Structures are given as structure tokens and as C-alpha cells.
């Protein structure tokens, strides 16, 4: 019995309720038919036959409905059931004598049940029932059907009451079902909602307008973004206002595109959460359609993938870091190789600069070395076109706190500006406009700062601590290499100097042996003739030969004096004093006033002379020698002039001084030889050939240079440079 009463599950609450309804109604009909058959012989004996006929139809038909319901053929069961009811009422009415039979009220029951069953087509049922009533009325009016049964008032009352009860029952079933459905749907909604609001993602609904305004957002949004839920619905476009500025344009563009194409939207982007937190969201949205395929709204899911992104970023950072480290090692190796293999500073610095810039892709790399005076850091190598221009301009920085490089040399410390806009110390260089961060590293060799390296990047905060360590290691390498190169150059220089001193010594001994021998040969030779002269009594010849001997002795005396002088130049040096060069010129001219007047030579002393830092006596000798030379080689110039002046400064800042004459001049092919010891151009003019050698040595001992500009017949100009005193600060 229980098994029969338990209905199979039809898969939906609605269908189960319907099935239960048919089941109960069919069962009710069977019970009613049986009660009707039992009671009729007592209450209305003439109707007994009809009751039996009706029960005979109703009971099997109801059983049939029960069977169909159990077989889950609900639709057939419904049609079968409603048709059965209609048939019963019609049959009962016709057999009971037409339209006035109280059983006609049964159509109301049929309609009620029909509406319950075929929710959407009640007109059809109503139509069929009305048609049946109308046909029955017509049949009765034309006499085809005649009223055969006369209902007693009691029978009528029973029939009416029966229908009232059935109608009441039906209505109560309907109401109960509706109530049940309502409760069920509330339960369902609560379940879905709790599901929706507890999954670890935010659900939102956006309507279909192109801007996709928000109509719903699940409360998780407060947890992941920190904004109140209401913020999203009070301002339906709030979601577009919290997009990360870097991603906003792309997200809006994609949203507009999917709004038109109706394709699913899927993107990963950043939003600015409360307190300016950056949150990575994965956003997937689908269009939801109704049963007729009309789009309703966008249903989307936001998932917080910030930590996932962090892991991704960390991995990327790690790989990037490793790559960078490898490059740094490679560069360090290259720099080390360059440092050990290139001994010339002029080659080493540009190589290192290019190596570092290329490997690290920095904007600019430059190397500064301190100048000899220790006042300036002079740019010695620099990368790129800007570097070339700065080298050409002779870019240099004072060793003061006013520049990064100056500061770093002065304090022997690295100086780092991660965003140079904020570092007031940095020297703003118009040639390097893109620099955003810069480091200056001191070049320290054997504890002494010899210069600095500057590295600049277009990115802010481009230098990590590890970068700086690696770069400092390279700077140390370079500094040591520079020191080695310097020592090497110094040694080469010393060797060269030693070689030239050796050469000079050799030349000296050679010339001494040759030139001192020469008067000896003369003296001995003429002494021999002197004897002959005496024996032959030729006194004229005797005088002549004696004079020869005397002048050879004088010459020997001069030679010895000058040689002594020359040998003393290198050894005895008076401490240099700061003297106005003009004073030295005046003294020399005064000293030589005799020969100058004798030769009727006009002196022209030009312009302002600088202060010079020299050994007074030696430089006086230089001037005397050069002026005497000019006098000696004036030739037959009718209007002889000697001009002394200053002609600017050389590359090292030393003043260039000159002595110019308009005498016979010197053929350029002899210019190399005139400074050599005992080299004389004109044997007819007196002199030992030491003068210019002396001049050259004195100038060189002062760190200066001497050269001449002359052509045969066009006079000669001797130029020389001398050191100046340090400017007082």
C-alpha cells in the first residue's frame, strides 16, 4: 500500500506536485464512484443503473490515470484525466435529461481541474465545456433529449453539496501547492544566494548598456577591494573609476568591444583598492539569455589573483636578476681582461666605458681623472655621441660638493642618486637630458683617489645594491689598471729620459774630445812653425803664428768655461721665484746695450708680459743668448729690429714668449741641428756652438719648450714657454 502511495520523483517540484494532484484526484474519483454505487439504491433507487454505468467507466479510467502517472507519462495522464472528467459530466448530464440536471455543475469542476493541468490553455477547456452546455440546451429545446429524471430536493442538495466540497478541495489543493512552491523557491533562493556569496570570488551583474553599469555585486567585493558594496550600485560606473591608470584604457576598450560582439569577456587587470592597494583581478563575464534567446545581462566573476601575480613577478624578477648577474660577471671578466691587457690609459678607458655601457644598457658612462693640480676632474672617456661632444668640449668638474663626481672624489665615497630630480648635488648636464638616476663611484688605487666613474640611466632607481657592488668592483679594477698603466708610462718615460741623458752624455764626451782637441792641434802645429820662423828669421810669420796660438788658447778657455756652465745647469738649480718676465727682458737688454747700440739695432718690447716662476739667473742667460744670437746674425740688414713679446698660452696654459729678428734667418733644413752641442752653421761668425744648446737645456729644465720659425733671409723667431706661478685663491 505504501509503495503504491509513494510517487516516483519526476525531476522537478512542479511536476511532482501535478503528479500528486492527479494521483489524489484519480484515487478520490474511485472512492467517490464506489460510495455513489453503494448509496444510490437507498437514496435514489431509480438512479442505481446509471450509477453502476458511471462507476464502470470511471474506476478503470482512473486506474488507467494512476498507471500513467506511475509510468511518469504525466502529460498523457493529464489529458486522459481531464477528458475523462468531461466525458463523465457530459454523459451524466445527457442521461439525466439535459441542461437542467444538477450534474451539469460538474463542468465547473472540469474547468478548474483543466486550468490546473493546462495552465496555459484554459480557453480550450472553457470552450469545450460551453459548447457541450449549448449543444445540450439545443437538444432539449428541439426535444431530442427529454428530462427523464425528476430530482428530489434532497438529491439536488446532495449533488450541489458534493460539487461544493469538490470545488473547495480543489481550491485548497491549489492554494497548498502554491504555498509549497513559494516556500520551496524561497529555500532555493536562499541556498543559491548563500552559495553565491560564499564562493571565494565576487559575482557581479552588469546591464547591457555599452558602459556596462553594475546592477549587482556580491559582498565579497568588500573583502577583496575594501570598498562598500553599495559604492558599486550607487554609482553603477564605479568599477571603471577604480581601474589602474595603466590598464584603464585597455579594459574599457575590451569591454566596449565585447558589448558589441556579445562575446565572453575575459581579462586580467589591476584596480586600485581602498588605501591605494593595487589588486590584480581576473575578470570573466558571460552574457545571460532568457528562454527566447534574448540577452538579459552580463554575469561576471572577479577573482583576486594578486598573490598569483606576485609569485609570477617574483619569478620574473628572479630570472631577470640571474640574467643581470650573469651579464655583470661577464662584464667584470671583460673589464678585468681589458684592465690587464691594455697598458695605455688612452686605450683602456674608452674600452671599459663601452664595455660597461653595452653590457648593462645604461644611458651613459663616463670616466674622469683628476688633473695634475688636483683641482679638476677631467673627463677622459665617455660613451656615445654625447660623450664624444663632451670630450671635445674638454668637460671637467671642480672637486667640490657641487657635482656628484666632485663630491664622490672629495669624499672617497660612492654617491647615488636614484632619481636625480631629487638630488640637488647633481650637475645638470644639458647633453644628457634623459638621465633619471646616476651613480658616481670613486676610482681608488692604493688608497688614493685618482678619478671617478659616472653611470647614468634613463630609469629612476636603476641601480640595485648588487649592481652598485658589481660596478664598484669594476671601478676598483679600472683604478688598479690605471695605476699600473700610469706606472708603466712613468717607467717608459724614465727609460726614455735616461736614454736621452745617455745620448747627451755620449755626445758631450764626443764633442769634448773632438772640439777640445782642435785648438790643441792648432797650438802644437803653430808652435812647430814658430821654431821654423825663428830659425829662418821671418818675424812677420812669427807674429802671425803666435797670434794663431794665442787665439786658440783663448778659444780653449771659452770652451772650457761654457762646458762647465752647461754641465752645471742640470745640477745646480736656484729655487724658482715668481718674477715679472718684463723685468728679465729689461735687464737683459740693458746688459747688451753696448752691442745693440753698436749694431744700431732698434728694440721693440711688446705688450704685457706674464709673471713667470723661474730660476732668475738661468732665464736671464736664455734671454742674453737669444738676443746676442739675433745681433750676431743680423747680416747686412739696413734697418735691424729685435722684437720681444708674448704670444698667448699653449695647451697647458703656459705663456708663449718670443724673440724675433729681421736678420739673415735660418734655412728650415737646419732647424733640427741648431740646438745640438757645438753645431755651428756659419764658421765665419764667432762662437762655440754651445749657446743654443744651453738655452734649450735651461728652458727644458723649467718644463718648457723651445722652437723656432725662420726662413733664410727672412729673419728668425725663437719661441719658448715658461712656467707661471700658481694662482692665489
Amino acid at each position, binding site marked *: 500500500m505504501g509503495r503504491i502511495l509513494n510517487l516516483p520523483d519526476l525531476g522537478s517540484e512542479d511536476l511532482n506536485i501535478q503528479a500528486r494532484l492527479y494521483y489524489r484526484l484519480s484515487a478520490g474519483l474511485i472512492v467517490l464512484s464506489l460510495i455513489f454505487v453503494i448509496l444510490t439504491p437507498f437514496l435514489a433507487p431509480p438512479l442505481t443503473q446509471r450509477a453502476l454505468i458511471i462507476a464502470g467507466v470511471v474506476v478503470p479510467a482512473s486506474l488507467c490515470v494512476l498507471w500513467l502517472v506511475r509510468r511518469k507519462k504525466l502529460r498523457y495522464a493529464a489529458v486522459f484525466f481531464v477528458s475523462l472528467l468531461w466525458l463523465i459530466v457530459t454523459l451524466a448530464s445527457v442521461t439525466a435529461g439535459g441542461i437542467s440536471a444538477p450534474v451539469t455543475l460538474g463542468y465547473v469542476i472540469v474547468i478548474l481541474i483543466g486550468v490546473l493541468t493546462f495552465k496555459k490553455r484554459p480557453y480550450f477547456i472553457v470552450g469545450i465545456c460551453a459548447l457541450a452546455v449549448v449543444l445540450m440546451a439545443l437538444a432539449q429545446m428541439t426535444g431530442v433529449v427529454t428530462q427523464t429524471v425528476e430530482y428530489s430536493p434532497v438529491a439536488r442538495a446532495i449533488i450541489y453539496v458534493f460539487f461544493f466540497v469538490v470545488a473547495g478541495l480543489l481550491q485548497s489543493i491549489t492554494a497548498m501547492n502554491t504555498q509549497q512552491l513559494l516556500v520551496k523557491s524561497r529555500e532555493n533562493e536562499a541556498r543559491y544566494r548563500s552559495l553565491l556569496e560564499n564562493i571565494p570570488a565576487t559575482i557581479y551583474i552588469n546591464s547591457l548598456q555599452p558602459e556596462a553599469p553594475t546592477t549587482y555585486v556580491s559582498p565579497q567585493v568588500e573583502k577583496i577591494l575594501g570598498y562598500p558594496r553599495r559604492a558599486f550600485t550607487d554609482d553603477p560606473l564605479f568599477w571603471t573609476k577604480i581601474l589602474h591608470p595603466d590598464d584603464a584604457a585597455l579594459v574599457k576598450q575590451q569591454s566596449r568591444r565585447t558589448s558589441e560582439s556579445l562575446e565572453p569577456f575575459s581579462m586580467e587587470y589591476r584596480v586600485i583598492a581602498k588605501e591605494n592597494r593595487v589588486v590584480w583581478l581576473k575578470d570573466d563575464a558571460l552574457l545571460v539569455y532568457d528562454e527566447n534567446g534574448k540577452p538579459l545581462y552580463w554575469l561576471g566573476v572577479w577573482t583576486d589573483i594578486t598573490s598569483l601575480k606576485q609569485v609570477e613577478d617574483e619569478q620574473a624578477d628572479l630570472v631577470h636578476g640571474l640574467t643581470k648577474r650573469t651579464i655583470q660577471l661577464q662584464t667584470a671578466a671583460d673589464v678585468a681582461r681589458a684592465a690587464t691587457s691594455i697598458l695605455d690609459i688612452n686605450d683602456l678607458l674608452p674600452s671599459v666605458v663601452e664595455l660597461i655601457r653595452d653590457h648593462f644598457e645604461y644611458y651613459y658612462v663616463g670616466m674622469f681623472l683628476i688633473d695634475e693640480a688636483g683641482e679638476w676632474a677631467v673627463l677622459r672617456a665617455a660613451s656615445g655621441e654625447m660623450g664624444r661632444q663632451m670630450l671635445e668640449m674638454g668637460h671637467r668638474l671642480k672637486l667640490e660638493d657641487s657635482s656628484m663626481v666632485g663630491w664622490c672624489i672629495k669624499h672617497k665615497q660612492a654617491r647615488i642618486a636614484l632619481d636625480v630630480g631629487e638630488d640637488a648635488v647633481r650637475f645638470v648636464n644639458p647633453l644628457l637630458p634623459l638621465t633619471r638616476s646616476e651613480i658616481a663611484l670613486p676610482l681608488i688605487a692604493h688608497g688614493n683617489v685618482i678619478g671617478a666613474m659616472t653611470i647614468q640611466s634613463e630609469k629612476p632607481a636603476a641601480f640595485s645594491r648588487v649592481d652598485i657592488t658589481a660596478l664598484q668592483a669594476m671601478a676598483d679594477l679600472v683604478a688598479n689598471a690605471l695605476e699600473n698603466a700610469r706606472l708603466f708610462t712613468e717607467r717608459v718615460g724614465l727609460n726614455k729620459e735616461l736614454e736621452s741623458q745617455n745620448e747627451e752624455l755620449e755626445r758631450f764626451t*764626443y764633442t769634448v774630445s773632438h772640439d777640445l782637441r782642435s785648438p790643441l*792641434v*792648432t797650438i*802644437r802645429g803653430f*808652435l812647430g812653425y814658430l821654431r821654423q820662423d825663428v830659425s829662418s828669421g821671418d818675424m812677420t810669420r812669427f807674429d802671425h803664428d803666435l797670434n794663431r796660438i794665442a787665439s786658440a788658447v783663448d778659444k780653449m778657455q771659452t770652451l772650457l768655461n761654457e762646458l762647465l756652465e752647461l754641465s752645471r745647469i742640470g745640477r745646480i738649480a736656484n729655487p724658482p721665484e715668481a718674477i715679472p718676465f718684463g723685468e728679465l727682458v729689461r735687464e737683459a737688454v740693458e746688459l747688451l746695450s753696448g752691442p745693440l747700440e753698436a749694431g744700431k739695432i732698434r728694440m721693440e718690447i711688446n705688450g704685457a708680459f706674464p709673471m713667470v716662476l723661474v730660476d732668475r739667473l738661468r732665464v736671464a742667460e736664455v734671454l742674453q743668448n737669444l738676443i746676442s744670437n739675433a745681433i750676431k746674425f743680423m747680416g747686412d740688414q739696413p734697418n735691424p729690429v729685435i722684437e720681444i713679446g708674448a704670444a698667448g698660452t699653449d695647451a697647458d696654459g703656459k705663456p708663449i714668449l718670443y724673440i724675433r729678428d729681421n736678420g739673415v734667418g735660418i734655412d728650415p733644413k737646419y732647424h733640427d741641428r741648431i740646438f745640438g752641442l757645438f753645431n755651428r752653421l756659419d764658421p765665419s761668425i764667432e762662437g762655440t756652438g754651445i749657446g743654443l744648446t744651453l738655452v734649450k737645456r735651461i728652458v727644458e729644465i723649467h718644463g718648457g719648450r723651445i722652437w723656432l720659425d725662420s726662413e733664410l733671409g727672412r729673419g728668425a723667431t725663437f719661441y719658448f714657454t715658461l712656467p707661471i706661478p700658481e694662482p692665489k685663491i
Partner: protein
Amino acid sequence: MVGEPILVMLVEDNVDHAELVIRTLEEHRIANKVRHFLDGQSALDYLFRREEYAGQENNPRPHVILLDLRLPRVDGIDVLKAIKESDELKAIPVVILTTSEAEKDVARAYYNHANSYLVKPVGFEEFKKLMDDLGFYWLGWNTHPHGKG
């Protein structure tokens, strides 16, 4: 060489030495004529017949050249080189007569095909003896490659 005037070219910047040489050579009647040049440039001009000697094609070529090494303008070694590089002149014997005993000078002279290298002696007798011998050898015994210049 019979009857032929013997010409000696003396290139010497020291006039005293030149006088000594010329006097000694004349006393011994070795040379008919000594032409003295004070520097290397004028000696070369004479030999190559240029500058002030230009066009003097009949200038006799010397039979022997006595050449000092340290000379103004063009050095003795350069004069020697110029002579020995010239097809016309290289046959003329060049005797270096100098005060320098330096090995370097001796080597350089012979390297540049000097025919002899003599150091001026300091003593008078030695000087005279050298000049005698020099005259006898180069102007007497030695057979010259050419008749006239």
C-alpha cells in the same frame, strides 16, 4: 799623371787647421793646388757644379778629397754620402781628416765608403809626418781612376 796638375780639395771649417794642412802640403811640393772649403755645403756645390759654381763645367775634379767630419751646414758624413752616392764622383778617393777618435765616427765613415780615416795628431812633428805620408801615398803611389774631371 805625368805633367798633370794635381788638385787637392780640403774641406775644413777650422781655418787654423786648414792653414796648417795647406802649408805642410805646399812645403813638400806634393800638390799643385789645394782648394779649401769652409763648410760641407760649399764643397758639395763645387763638386756638383751648382749654386755659385753652376755652369763651371770645366772646374777640375780633385784627385783627392781631405774631409773633416764636423762641419757647419752640411756635416762631413753627409758630404761623404753625397759623393759616394754620385756615379760621377764616387771614384774620387775621400780621406777623412779629423780630430775625432770616436769609434762611432770611424765606423760611420768606413760604412759610407770613406777610402781612409786619419786622426789629426796633436804633435807638430807627427802632423808634418802624416801630411808627408798622406801626400806620397795618395798623390804619389796611388793610381787614380781618372785623367781629368
